[in-house]
């Protein structure tokens, strides 16, 4: 935008322009920001309730109703068969775990690298992590044939003297996902404490007061409290990154360690991680666009600069995904194993071949065509659509890797296609549940970490270098 050099007399307007562009240069008194956030939480229109009611109904019927029916009837009501023993439930699991990666990426990696643009939406992203993992957990339990015995997967002392089998990638998975869910929830909660205290202070009474009081744990903001919190957040930011990588790597090992053509690939770990980030960033940008559009006062906190920044990340990740995809494809293709060949042929020329091509278009072609342009990627609705398409593409990728690839094995006599059944309402149910949880959370907890924004605003200032006014950041920590 501001690409031409500006005349001196416009220096003032240049500052104004920068201020308009950057949240960090556009400070408002803390009290005002607090009021804005509180208003955003409290301002609820009838539309919210209608949407929440519809989603609630979907969750009740589509998720819990269908699930109960499936538990009572057996997995026969789903579309799984031999040889496609794994279906959409695991697609959903991988998908939601993927979505959950963006939250950690934004709040931990960007925190570690001190990317300042992250500040207003770390919490929005972390909420996605936690709620996404909840859906992933639901999906993985849906997948089980005898879910009422799922506690056997957890290590606990028992009279049978039998512990889980740690040879199995599924038990690693369980540990990793549990670790990640706990870690991301704690990591969501720690920076939330000061904001809860803020909300507590600004709530006069009623159940909300009690709610915030209990959750704020009696936080006052003493030096000691801040020190402990900062230390803990630093440790979390560093430690949660390898956990995040391990989670999706282990998810990929569910497939990669199997003796199946097409799955047995060493590149699956990083390929899945980058795929997770790909869909996760798409989801973050969708959530931000929706939050900005629907919630009060959010246009102040979430600005085109943020979409621009995430858009750049998305472009890079899309390129990374394409790189890993091609890497995997190339090696499989070159290997010449007849079953792998059959699988690749099935992917591309089989009856579901359209999925494969659509995946490449929406995962690579569209982001590359759109996101290079700063103006386009600064537009919330354009990036919303791109994010949506990427999520569709990444869902297709998992769908191709799981049910479509499972058709092809080393026993051609058993090859059979997969047609989803009750998986469809259940998938819609998990999606609705995710949105519903998010909506409820947006009304209960401050969606923007105000203290972090204020901290950032303190650190930012404008400085003139020659004739140009630029943004400078002071290292406060």
């Amino acid at each position, binding site marked *: 935008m501001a690409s031409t050099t500006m005349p001196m007399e416009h220096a003032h307007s240049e500052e104004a322009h920068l201020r308009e562009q950057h949240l960090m240069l556009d400070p408002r008194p803390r*009290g005002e920001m607090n009021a804005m956030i509180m208003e955003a939480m409290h301002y609820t229109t009838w539309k919210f309730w209608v949407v929440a009611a519809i989603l609630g109904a979907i969750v009740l019927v589509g998720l819990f109703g269908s699930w109960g029916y499936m538990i009572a009837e057996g997995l026969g009501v789903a579309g799984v068969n031999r040889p496609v023993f794994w279906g959409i439930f695991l697609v959903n699991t991988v998908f939601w775990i993927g979505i959950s990666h963006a939250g950690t990426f934004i709040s931990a990696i960007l925190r570690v690298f001190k990317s300042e643009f992250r500040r207003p939406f770390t919490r929005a992203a972390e909420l996605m992590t936690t709620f996404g993992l909840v859906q992933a957990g639901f999906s993985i339990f849906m997948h089980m044939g005898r879910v009422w015995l799922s506690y056997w997967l957890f290590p606990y002392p028992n009279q049978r003297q039998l512990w889980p089998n740690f040879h199995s990638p599924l038990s690693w998975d369980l540990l990793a996902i*549990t670790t990640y869910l706990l870690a991301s929830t*704690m990591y969501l909660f720690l920076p939330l404490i000061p904001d809860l*205290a803020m909300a507590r202070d600004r709530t006069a009474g009623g159940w909300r007061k009690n709610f915030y009081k209990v959750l704020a744990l009696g936080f*006052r903001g003493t030096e000691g409290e801040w020190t402990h919190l900062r230390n803990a957040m630093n440790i979390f930011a560093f430690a*949660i990154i390898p956990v995040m990588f391990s989670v999706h790597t282990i998810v990929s090992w569910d497939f990669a360690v199997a003796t199946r053509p097409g799955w047995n690939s060493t590149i699956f770990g990083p390929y899945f991680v980058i795929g997770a980030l790909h869909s996760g960033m798409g989801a973050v940008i969708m959530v931000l666009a929706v939050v900005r559009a629907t919630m009060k006062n959010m246009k102040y906190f979430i600005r085109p600069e943020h979409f621009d920044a995430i858009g750049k990340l998305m472009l890079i990740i899309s390129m990374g995904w394409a790189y890993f995809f091609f890497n995997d494809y190339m090696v499989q293709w070159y290997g010449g194993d007849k079953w792998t060949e059959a699988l690749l042929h099935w992917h591309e020329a089989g009856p579901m071949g359209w999925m494969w091509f659509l995946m490449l278009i929406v995962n690579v072609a569209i982001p590359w065509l759109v996101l290079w342009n700063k103006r386009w990627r600064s537009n919330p609705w354009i990036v919303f659509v791109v994010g949506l398409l990427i999520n569709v593409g990444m869902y297709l990728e998992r769908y191709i890797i799981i049910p479509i690839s499972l058709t092809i094995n080393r026993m051609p006599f058993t090859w059979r296609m997969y047609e989803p059944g009750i998986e469809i309402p259940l998938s819609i149910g998990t999606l609705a549940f995710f949105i519903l949880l998010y909506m409820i959370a947006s009304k209960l907890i401050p969606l923007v970490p105000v203290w972090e924004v204020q901290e950032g605003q303190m650190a930012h200032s404008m400085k003139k270098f020659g004739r140009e006014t630029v943004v400078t950041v002071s290292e*406060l920590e």
Partner: protein
Amino acid sequence: MADTVSLLAVFPDLEPAADAIDKLRSLGLAHDQMNVISGIPVTEAMLGRPSQWTNVPRLALGGAIGGFLVGLFLVFTPLLYFVPVGGQPIIPGPPSVVLLFELTMLGLLISTFLGVFLDSTFPSYRPMQYVPEISDGKIAVFFNCPEDERERYTQAMTDSGAETVKEAEAQQL
């Protein structure tokens, strides 16, 4: 201490608060006789205060070791009841690494989290000295002074730019 009183001075910004702390020091108060309450993390250096002691990193390390030990136990659980699978060793190598890693991290993160609780004595719902304005960006300095010197201290605070100086009363948050 019957002859001391707790005062709470609220400042609109960092500078006056730092000034006030300097004044309190010069009035003879030790660092541990005062405390600062703020709505954003204000580093000790900004206010000229000594570094705060925190146990969180140590607790985190302890947790990590604890997690590692739990992991080690789980790695060796197959020895309790031999069940061979797939021609693999009873205690598989690489999967054990995965297990140890996950449990170490789990221990580390949980203990970090609990460390915050421990160090900050969270949760505490008892009445505490507090001014809600600090969440609006104010900085409150909280100190104990002798009863008889109350006026002097109050004046010093007001001079430094305190908006209000009042007796700190424990209140329900």
